């Protein structure tokens, strides 16, 4: 299944920092987000609770449209409202509730204590300004420094994200750069003010495979250097195994399983997580067909009343149809949203 070396790469420092940790840098509790026009009672993000400790990495995993990006954007205050509305929950970052801040306070925090990089490096930079100016602008916004000091800092950031010939690149426009280079610029821009938390929303999805590995290892290296915490949104389980401390698996707007990376990979409990693991191709000898999860995520208007994964679940029964399961702790720091977790006990040997 997953390459064991990668799996244990970070297991040494995955102590503490559970999803309910008290000393968390970011603590999101019972977050629910609705889109106007969606059927009542169907939230695009529903009752999401997660936390990230200082310097740690939380990976948010799930298929497209499951609410990962919406969650991330809401934490940054970048969710367009309307149509989106935060209908419940709180998000404490360093003691302050992100959802009760004024617009000004949010703007002061963005790009300063919190920063975000996005999925589409090709369109995320403003085409009419040089990349140097775009980085400098972010520094001048939050730091009381002179223009030349800001330029110096921007240049240093370009060096740190390993842009060749950084002095020359300061004057370049985004269209003169490749996707990988532009994502490095985005990273430089995000980290220029030394944020405590970086949210990376599928930062490598739009890039070539060879570039993907470079960008991920760059992000990890920068994180080690700066000690910032990170929420990495991805559906690349190889990356998760390599980089995560904690993992939260989302399905149709809900967290279906959360725990340390070891627990999630060695002892997955939710049928959806197990299915995801089965969908990862391995490099070793082929053993039969690549497993897939049958069916697709139901659209909002057809969302089941009980467990949202029920229509696709091989273990579903009557109870799953009628009652939505809670996110229940299975072992300390490991919880799953399934009536039958742990599956070994309820269903005998599986997976």
């Amino acid at each position, binding site marked *: 299944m997953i390459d064991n070396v990668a799996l244990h790469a970070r297991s040494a420092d995955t102590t503490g920092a559970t999803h309910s940790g008290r000393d968390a840098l970011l603590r999101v509790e019972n977050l629910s987000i609705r889109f106007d026009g969606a059927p009542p009672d169907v939230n695009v993000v529903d009752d999401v609770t997660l936390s990230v400790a200082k310097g740690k990495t939380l990976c948010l995993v799930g298929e497209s449209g499951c609410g990962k990006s919406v969650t991330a954007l809401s934490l940054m205050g*970048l969710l367009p409202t309307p149509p989106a509305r935060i209908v419940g929950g709180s998000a404490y970052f360093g003691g302050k509730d992100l959802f009760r801040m004024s617009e000004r306070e949010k703007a002061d925090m963005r*790009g300063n204590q919190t920063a975000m990089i*996005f999925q589409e490096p090709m*369109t*995320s930079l*403003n*085409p009419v300004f040089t990349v140097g100016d775009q980085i400098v602008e972010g520094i001048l916004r939050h730091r009381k420094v002179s223009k030349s000091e800001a330029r110096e800092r921007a240049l240093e950031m370009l060096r740190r994200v390993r842009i060749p010939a950084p002095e020359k690149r300061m004057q370049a*426009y985004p269209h003169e750069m490749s996707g990988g280079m532009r994502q490095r610029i985005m990273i430089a*821009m995000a980290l220029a003010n030394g944020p405590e938390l970086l949210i990376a929303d599928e930062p490598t999805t739009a890039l070539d495979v060879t570039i993907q590995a470079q960008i991920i290892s760059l992000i990890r290296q920068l994180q080690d250097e700066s000690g910032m915490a990170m929420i990495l949104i991805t559906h690349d389980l190889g990356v998760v195994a390599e980089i995560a401390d904690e993992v939260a698996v989302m399905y149709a707007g809900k967290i279906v399983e959360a725990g340390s990376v070891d627990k999630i990979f060695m002892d997955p409990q939710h049928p959806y997580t197990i299915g995801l693991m089965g969908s990862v191709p391995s490099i070793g000898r082929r053993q039969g067909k690549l497993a897939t999860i049958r069916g697709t995520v139901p659209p909002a208007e057809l969302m089941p009343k009980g467990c949202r994964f029920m229509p696709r679940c091989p273990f579903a029964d009557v109870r799953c149809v009628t009652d939505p399961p809670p996110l229940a702790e299975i072992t300390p720091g490991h919880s799953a949203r399934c009536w039958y977790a742990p599956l070994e006990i309820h269903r005998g040997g599986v997976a």
Partner: protein
Amino acid sequence: MLRYIAKRILIAIPTILIVSVLVFTLQQLLPGDPVLTLAGEERDPQVLAFLREKYRLDDPIPVQYFAWFSQVLQGNLGISLRTDIPVLHLILSKLPVTIELAIFAMVIALAIGIPAGVIAAVRKGTSVDYAANVIALSGLSIPNFWLGILLIMLVSVRWKLLPASGFVPPSEDLWLNIKTMLMPAFVLGTGLSASLMRHTRSAMLGVLRSDYIRTAKAKGLLSHVVIMKHALRNALVPIITLSTLLFGELLAGAVLTEQIFTIPGFGKLIVDAVFNRDYAVVQGVVLCTAVGFIAMNLLADVLYVLANPRLRHAR
């Protein structure tokens, strides 16, 4: 960049040639005989024949065209049949008036149109947006002459704030010159501001949805910086082009507006010339405005490339 401009100029040359042919031949289709107009009450066939001979009106049309165009190339646009003043002289005396009016009108149009478009886009779907759209639609549908007459009645006749008509050169009395220009420029400018507003609004709406606007917000930039710097700078690219073309149209003279406010600009010159069958003047003025319009097109192309770094390097 220079090569690009040179290329555009080369492309403009055949356009001007075609325009000159069109101007010359279309005018032949105008009803009426210039000689009869010239001779006035005098209908002596000998006088008429003399006049025809003098202005070579009996030559075949292609011959007339080449005679005229070869003179044009030497900078001689001919002599007004009516007033015996060289056409070039007439044009040069009216051009500053038209240019001044055009600049005034454009400034007013930009000052109203762009801010209104930006506000409508940012407040999309609110009452502000609807109000701006309704006003713009009225601006587009209210005819200039009606607004002009209304303004004269209110501002000049009733309130006696501004002179109703006439023109004073700025060299004579700058303040009075501005006062006479204000109303006609306002009439022209509001009409243009409506289309500028609608273009600004739609360009801004497109830009505000872009990923780089989200990035600008993610940097913590305040919303006025995001809108005025990051969004507007991108939305301006198509607006610059539109403004330049609108300015080109203004240069062609605002016939009705100039008539109403009796401003001695291009519009008035050409209307008088058409009524008087003053061929040389009509040809000269139309050719001149065509060249002006082509020049504005060229300027629009150049500004478009300058405003857009992606094109600047590609050329």
